[in-house]
């Protein structure tokens, strides 16, 4: 603590109060490009959170002012998330402001926070944060964030400077993202051997607010993880917790029952996922695979397993069958599965010759496309009878899709569920650099890709 101000009596004195107000809060928008924190420079007083839906203050965080001589001052944030640091008498120069919320951890927001045997986790957890500040006359001339976000999967450091608009400033508002936000709902615990797959989603939103409110909220729908635009990852439920995040089936298993759900903040459309999101996702996936021995082949998209338009049904039932439901499209064709494949994650297409597959329909010079209403019974392929075709190409196709994992009726009849499965397959494997039209038809390219995926060895 600073020394008391020496004051004379009976004669005039001047005392110019120099102190910094630090406000620590979480803004659910998460729109900053900073890997975990934002400064908001607001002249004259802290911004109040008018709408609690869009943010929350962080109470009881330890805020320290560190100089070359050690701790110059320390304070706890009050119920408005505010702390006052005394800067009177401090020489101008470089200092650090360290913010350590209650329940701070240096861990990654991953399986490291998932031990099912631990006592109930607190509502929130954060990483501690250090901000380098240049003080002049006890006021902030410049603030620099040296956030070590290696834990967020980027493996590098971001450095950003925010020269405040009103220099020098006496207010340092900090927007600190949590690594853990406990879902406001009692969740069923799953056994270790239940954790068999990982489902990748997008939030279909430009900002994180809606997703955060849903995932931390009391509804059963949710996700275990959210990766924001900057690759910052928040965990909402333990990996062992049962969270409803994807209906449907994959390799005959219910994804809700056996999966860990990862949501990525991304608005559907042609916009790319951000460059920070891939490394964060890859890092999280590797940690999950290592922690639970999940087969990397069982890292799939929501579109691979999910269904749309059936949410009123009990899609948590293990034998629920939604083959006739529409499918969700996320993470979508702009999602670059190839970046995951390069890291040995997800289904990785090999290089398998077509051979005699699918009645050699794709071996000739004639362009044949297997499509809706083709049928092994009447030997109808490409919309017209081809009586000489050997084998049962539609059934073979259905069997291959099922072997990969897609839910499809194996009937020999290319009906709508088959078309949906083909579309889902195309959406996954014709994404990113391999992108082409998703049409639900099996042309030579699609047939070749199905073989490449089916025949690829498990890593």
């Amino acid at each position, binding site marked *: 603590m600073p020394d008391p101000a020496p004051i004379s009596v009976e*004669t005039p004195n001047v005392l110019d109060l120099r102190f910094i107000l630090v406000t620590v809060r979480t803004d659910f928008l998460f729109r900053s490009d900073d890997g975990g924190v934002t400064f908001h420079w607001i002249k004259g007083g802290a911004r109040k959170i008018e709408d609690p839906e869009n943010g929350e203050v962080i109470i009881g965080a330890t805020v320290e002012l560190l100089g070359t001589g050690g701790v110059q001052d320390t304070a706890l944030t009050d119920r408005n998330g505010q702390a006052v640091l005394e800067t009177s008498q401090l020489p101008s120069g470089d200092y650090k402001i360290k913010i350590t919320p209650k329940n701070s951890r240096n861990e990654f927001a991953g399986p490291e926070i998932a031990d099912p045997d631990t006592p109930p986790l607190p509502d929130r957890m954060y990483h501690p944060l250090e901000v380098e500040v240049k003080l002049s006359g006890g006021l902030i001339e410049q603030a620099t964030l040296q956030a070590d976000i290696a834990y967020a999967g980027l493996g590098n450091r971001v450095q950003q400077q925010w020269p405040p608009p009103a220099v020098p400033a006496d207010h340092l508002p900090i927007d600190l993202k949590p690594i853990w936000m406990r879902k406001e709902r009692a969740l069923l615990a799953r056994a270790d051997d239940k954790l068999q797959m990982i489902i990748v989603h997008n939030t279909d939103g430009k900002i994180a607010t809606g997703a955060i409110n849903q995932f931390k909220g009391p509804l059963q729908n949710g996700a275990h993880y959210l990766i924001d635009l900057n690759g910052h990852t928040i965990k909402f439920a333990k990996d062992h917790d049962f969270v409803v995040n994807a209906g449907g089936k994959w390799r005959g298993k219910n994804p809700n029952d056996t999966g860990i759900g990862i949501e990525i903040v991304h608005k559907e459309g042609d916009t790319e996922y951000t460059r920070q999101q891939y490394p964060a996702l890859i890092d999280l996936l590797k940690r999950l695979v290592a922690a639970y021995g999940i087969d990397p082949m069982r890292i799939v998209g929501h579109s691979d397993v999910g269904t749309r338009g059936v949410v009123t049904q009990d899609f948590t039932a293990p034998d629920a069958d939604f083959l006739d439901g529409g499918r969700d499209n996320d993470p979508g064709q702009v999602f670059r599965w190839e970046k995951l494949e390069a890291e040995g994650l997800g289904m990785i297409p090999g290089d398998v010759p077509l051979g005699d597959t699918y009645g050699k329909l794709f071996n000739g010079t004639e362009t044949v496309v297997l499509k809706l209403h083709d049928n092994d019974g009447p030997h109808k392929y490409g919309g017209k009878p081809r009586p000489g075709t050997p084998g049962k190409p539609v059934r073979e196709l259905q069997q291959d899709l099922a072997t990969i994992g897609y839910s499809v009726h194996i009937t020999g009849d290319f009906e709508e569920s088959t078309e949906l499965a083909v579309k889902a397959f195309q959406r996954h494997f014709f994404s990113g650099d391999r992108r082409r039209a998703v049409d639900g038809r099996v042309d030579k390219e699609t047939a070749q890709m199905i073989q490449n995926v089916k025949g690829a060895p498990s890593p």
Partner: protein
Amino acid sequence: MSQTYVVQPGDYMETIAEKFGFRDYHIIYDDPNNSHIKKFRPNPHILYPGDRVFIPDMDPGHEPADTDKKHKFVLKAQKIKLILYIRRNGEPFAKQAYKLKIGAQTIAGKTGDDGLIEQPIPLGEPLGELTFAGPPQYTRKLNFGFLHPISKNSGRQMRLNNLGFGCGPPTGDESDTYDAAVRAFQRRNRLTLTGKFNDHTLDKLRSEYDHDVPS
């Protein structure tokens, strides 16, 4: 029997007078044996620890009273005035409600248009706590009588610190941070930037902080 007293931190003439039973510090301060003190400490309220003060013999007072009766002599508790201009980041901190806690006593008030707090406080109480309700609530500890004379480096450092030109603990030592604070003070007051005290700088500090009261 006369004696010499060595000034301790927090002492000013009034506290020394009280210590030795004088109601009026002028008896000490104006004593011819203290002419050197008067010369080097033109402000009797601002002394320097280590100063040697001559304490003259006391002329005991007499109060006539009957014997075999109980008498009550009431000595009025002495008060001393605090004159404190409060600023915030260089501007007068005007019309701000404050609470001044001194010992067991808490005084509430409001700063004037110029940020002034003018307030009688108990004599000899060294520590106070000045709190502004805010938001944000802010408390600053005060050490009454601890200001050093402006003729001393430490006194200049204390004044610079109080004015917002932070130069670290007022050790009186020369240092880069001291020079930097002096330079910042010179820059603010459009003086030649030397980083060292000269007559102009000293005059300016005296008028800024002491309102031209000699110290």
